[in-house]
């Protein structure tokens, strides 16, 4: 995948995904490899995202690369009215790789078409965040030993959550069973259910968060956000329904791991944090190794 941009998770084949996952394991075993020495990575954050930016910058530093860029658009010439095209044209002359976060959807695809160097999408509005998906896949692979034939439970906001949509698309390459748990207002959109139907992948929808999770290999929690509800009463009704508590994990499988893209609010009670099945903090750490793997393979260094 040398020289290839990573804009959308569907840009990578099953083989390429597995290659990244295995490479991430390699970087986790040997985190300090000066593969990016002498390389300049542009980190263009047109909107702030501390977690993603720090993860990328840590990955770049561990690979001995240099970072140039900005952390929000107020410190870029966007405020002077410069177009994205012009910013990208200029930065691609300075750097070997561009990492970009932008509030507008489709901005990353457009940037990749304008840039002479590969572009890694670090989130374009509500559209795609493929490095999050790849780190989720690495976390699943690492904890389950495989990506094949797993029972994946997705819980919370399944309507607007881009992480669950991308995860669904990517995991569908590995013959999973899906269980969706969400309030009616935030159900998985039809287009994704039709996609699963077309692939012959089984899925089940639930509105109650109960002991059905005893079947789960992966429990992927997301935040139910107040601003998604037109009626505040509806939010009040469901806000405490989709909360995971330690007591709910008693009858779950030993290999179950709980994932969450973070930040969490109250959807995972803090009493879960000490349970060995809680994996969300390690998941965030896995992001660094996954991003090392992505950058090294796109630059053809591994």
């Amino acid at each position, binding site marked *: 995948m040398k020289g290839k941009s990573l804009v959308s998770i569907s840009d990578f084949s099953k083989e390429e995904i597995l290659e990244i996952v295995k490479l991430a394991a390699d970087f986790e075993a040997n985190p300090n490899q000066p593969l990016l020495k002498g390389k300049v990575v542009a980190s263009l954050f047109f909107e702030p995202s501390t977690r993603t930016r720090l993860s990328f910058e840590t990955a770049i530093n561990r690979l001995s690369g240099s970072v140039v860029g900005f952390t929000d658009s107020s410190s870029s010439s966007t405020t002077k009215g410069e177009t994205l095209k012009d910013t990208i044209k200029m930065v691609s002359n300075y750097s070997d790789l561009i990492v970009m976060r932008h509030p507008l959807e*489709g901005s990353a695809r457009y940037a990749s078409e304008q840039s002479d160097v590969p572009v890694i999408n670090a989130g374009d509005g509500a559209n795609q965040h493929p490095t999050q998906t790849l780190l989720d896949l690495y976390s699943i692979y690492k904890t389950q030993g495989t990506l094949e034939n797993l029972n994946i439970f997705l819980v919370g906001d399944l309507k607007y959550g881009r992480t669950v949509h991308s995860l669904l698309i990517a995991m569908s390459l590995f013959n999973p069973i899906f269980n969706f748990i969400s309030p009616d207002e935030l159900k998985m959109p039809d287009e994704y259910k039709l996609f699963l139907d077309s692939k012959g992948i089984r899925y089940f929808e639930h509105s109650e968060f109960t002991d059905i999770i005893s079947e789960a290999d992966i429990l992927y929690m997301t935040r139910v956000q107040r601003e998604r509800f037109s009626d505040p009463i509806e939010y009040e009704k469901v806000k405490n329904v989709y909360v995971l508590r330690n007591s709910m994990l008693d009858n779950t499988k030993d290999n179950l791991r709980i994932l969450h893209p973070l930040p969490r609010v109250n959807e995972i009670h803090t009493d879960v944090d000490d349970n060995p099945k809680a994996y969300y903090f390690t998941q965030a750490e896995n992001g660094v190794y996954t991003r090392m793997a992505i950058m090294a393979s796109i630059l053809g260094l591994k």
Partner: protein
Amino acid sequence: MSKRKLKVSAIKNGTVIDHIPASNLFKVISILNLDKIKNQITFGTNLESQKLNHKAIIKVSDKFFEDEEINKIALVAPSAKLNIIRDYEVVEKKVVDIPDEVIGIVKCFNPKCITNNEPIITKFTVVSKEEIALKCHYCEKITSEDHLKIV
């Protein structure tokens, strides 16, 4: 018996685009840039039609469209029929095909799409031809027939 009178007069050479839904006549004109060319053009709209409730018809003198060009109107006038006229005779009939890819022409309905915020030529893949659904190459959102707007 008197000869049936044509509501829009005949042309000697050129193209007749018939069976355009009346409501989309001006979209067709704009897609084909007919408002910017110097050819003689006559059109009629809200004419009675058996197939469509109200149809429109355009007659463009001395203009012969490439398939690629004319297929652009399939999005707004899938039922359109073309008659190629030479010396007052119909020498060829054509129908329009919905293309697999739509470049320019249509506006992405997602206000947060980069194409609605910077000067970018839109690009879509046609994911459904029955009830037209276009997937934006950039933001990956679907623009359906109900939301279809011409750039």
